[in-house]
């Protein structure tokens, strides 16, 4: 179906179902119940799930297939965001040109960065990409202020000259829209105690995610993808056979950069502002975390990782001591205080601590990420070992 093998098609269907039914899946608890804080079905967060999912899928095309660890991928997302906001400012509030320009600008930028960085490999490649990203970050913060608006971040204003659109609507800035359908428009479905929100912006991003995912499957299964995987397993041998790897690597890098630009453009389409902190190397680190956590080199892994991190970031940051006391209220008083005291550093503002620990544990014990973990658990229940996805297999026989 659609040029996919049955297994991949099933995977695609799962992703389609997951994204399209997300408002239901993510809102399993009634609004007024105590568990409502675990609901994640509101537009802002759902948008973040899919946008970071796209970002991670793109990163995975580079890292998962070729093994080249880029530590500067956020730069492409940032550049894409800036381009998108400018398009919204100057041309029209329709998001299509903004997203297209984001992808193109990020692609061009990644051609430059990739051309230079790919001359080296291994740790040098990581440091070169890191250097480029930090450079763009520093420039966006200081010299390029006319373009990026420095520390404040680039925002829409009331007197933007929108050539193909309107500058103001009733004295306010118009919302980004897709041929008239505002990104912020939502439809609330109330069923008993439950409330499900369907948001235009979310569904736009979700459709883009599905397309991006489909493209990623095609790349993974194509001769081109096979070539990239060969780079990962033995680059030297590839060179000895007389093959010029450079165009392949550059193509992978640029595709991956364009995915990042797409994510940046979507981010802007949902919320039209862009800041330099999106390009900082901690942001690059975050997408690395997502990909590794989900499972680098697998198809679904990055999407899972992005969802996982964004979900727990949101939930963990909301929990505070009062909530903890409620949870552990069944314990004797002394014990309750001890438990709350122990858990306290890991919640609320301590989310990054939890994330760091989790990340270390995954790298140490589960290098294949959540996907590998799932396969292991699945393997326990099934008699036969599950058919290994060829992408997760590490080193081929020498």
């Amino acid at each position: 179906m659609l040029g996919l093998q049955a297994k991949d098609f099933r995977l695609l269907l799962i992703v389609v179902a997951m994204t399209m039914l997300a408002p239901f899946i993510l809102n399993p608890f009634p609004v007024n119940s105590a568990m409502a804080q675990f609901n994640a079905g509101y537009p802002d967060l759902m948008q973040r799930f899919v946008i970071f999912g796209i970002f991670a899928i793109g990163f995975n095309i580079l890292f998962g297939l070729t093994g080249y660890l880029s530590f500067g991928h956020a730069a492409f997302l940032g550049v894409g965001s800036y381009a998108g906001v400018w398009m919204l400012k100057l041309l029209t509030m329709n998001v299509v040109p903004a997203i297209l320009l984001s992808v193109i600008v990020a692609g061009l930028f990644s051609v430059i960065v990739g051309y230079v960085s790919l001359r080296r490999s291994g740790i040098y490649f990581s440091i070169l990409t890191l250097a480029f990203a930090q450079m763009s970050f520093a420039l966006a913060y200081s010299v390029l202020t006319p373009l990026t608006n420095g520390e404040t971040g680039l925002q829409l204003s009331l007197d933007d000259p929108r050539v193909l659109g309107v500058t103001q609507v009733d004295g306010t800035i118009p919302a980004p829209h897709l041929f008239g359908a505002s990104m912020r428009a939502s439809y609330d479905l109330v069923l008993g105690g439950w409330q499900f929100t369907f948001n235009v912006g979310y569904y736009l991003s979700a459709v883009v995610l599905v397309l991006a995912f489909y493209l990623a499957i095609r790349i993974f299964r194509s001769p081109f993808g096979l070539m990239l995987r060969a780079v990962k397993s033995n680059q030297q041998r590839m060179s000895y056979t007389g093959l010029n790897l450079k165009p392949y690597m550059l193509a992978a890098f640029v595709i991956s950069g364009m995915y990042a630009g797409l994510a940046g453009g979507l981010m802007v389409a949902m919320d039209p502002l862009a800041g330099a902190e999106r390009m900082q190397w901690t942001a690059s680190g975050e997408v690395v975390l997502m990909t590794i956590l989900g499972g680098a080199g697998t198809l679904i892994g990055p999407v899972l990782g992005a969802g996982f991190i964004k979900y727990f970031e949101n939930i963990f940051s909301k929990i505070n001591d009062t909530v903890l006391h409620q949870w552990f209220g069944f314990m004797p008083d002394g014990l309750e205080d001890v438990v709350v005291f122990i858990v306290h550093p890991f919640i609320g503002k301590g989310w990054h601590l939890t994330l760091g620990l989790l990340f270390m544990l995954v790298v140490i014990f589960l290098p294949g990420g959540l996907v590998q973990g799932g396969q292991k658990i699945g393997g326990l229940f099934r008699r036969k070992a599950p058919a290994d996805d060829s992408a997760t297999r590490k080193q081929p026989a020498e």
Partner: protein
Amino acid sequence: MDAILLQILNGLDKGSAYALIALGLTLIFGTLGVVNFAHGAIFMIGAFCAVTLSRLLSLSHPSAEPTGTDFLGNPKFDDVLYVNEWFGETAGAFIIDWSVPLAILFAIPIMVAVGFIMERGLIKHFYKRPHADQILVTFGLAIVLQEVIKYFYGANPIPTPAPEVFRGSFDFGVLLGFEANAIIYPYWRMVYFAFALVLITAVFGFLQFTTFGMVVRAGMADRETVGLLGINIDKRFTIMFAIAACVAGLAGVMYTPINSPNYHMGMDFLVLSFVVVVVGGMGSLPGAVLAGFLLGILESFASMPVMTSLIPGINQIIIYLVAIVVLLTRPRGLMGRRGVMEE
């Protein structure tokens, strides 16, 4: 002329910090073959050792006897510092004033312990894994260490002053025949530079002139052969890791008066130190030191008003630019050897 001299001096202290961190990074890379992204966090822990010591020294308890009466006529109890009680007023005041230099003694055992635990507990298991995994796990560790420090000390920078004697500035210009106040340089930065030189010399001397150092150098050149000769090279490499941690930690301790420590200072320095290591040549100790000072001075030159008006923003990106140019034209770095991390 005086402006140029001033910039060179300004670059020295930052360059010293870069050189010290890069030296540690190179030691770890050269001996263990591990790319340690948590090295910046070690630098930060060192800085927070100084903070901790100055806090410990200012512990006090209320005096047993009333020292007078307050304005309501109630007996008043002044806080008595433990150090004053134990060592007397003058010695106590002196100790508190000198808390940063004293923190060196305090930090050495802590840093050695940190290095030891890190190597034995975590990094040991990553020798055989790919470099990407090493980067990732140490990156995770860096996040954890940073967050732990943030949890205990808060997110704000904590000012930690230098001893009273070193708080002034020295007028270099007069010495060289310029006008007064043309080239002034804070004493503490001179101290830091001297300290860095001493530390660097000590590390090089240790590697060059002791039997232990000789074995370690042999191990850096060919680990397998040294192992085959019946020498427990792993044990020595662990000790080298602890020494590298110590160097970075002490660099952090002494840096506190220049820049108030905060929890993300490690990350800020780490990125630059990696660039320094790469420019100097992966695995080359003299290269790391040379590149550290060079880049520090270059950075301060680039922030001269003349330069920033010529090319705006050059001060922000000069180091990265240099790194990119060096990596592309001299892939081994300034002093890199053949065969070390070639690809």
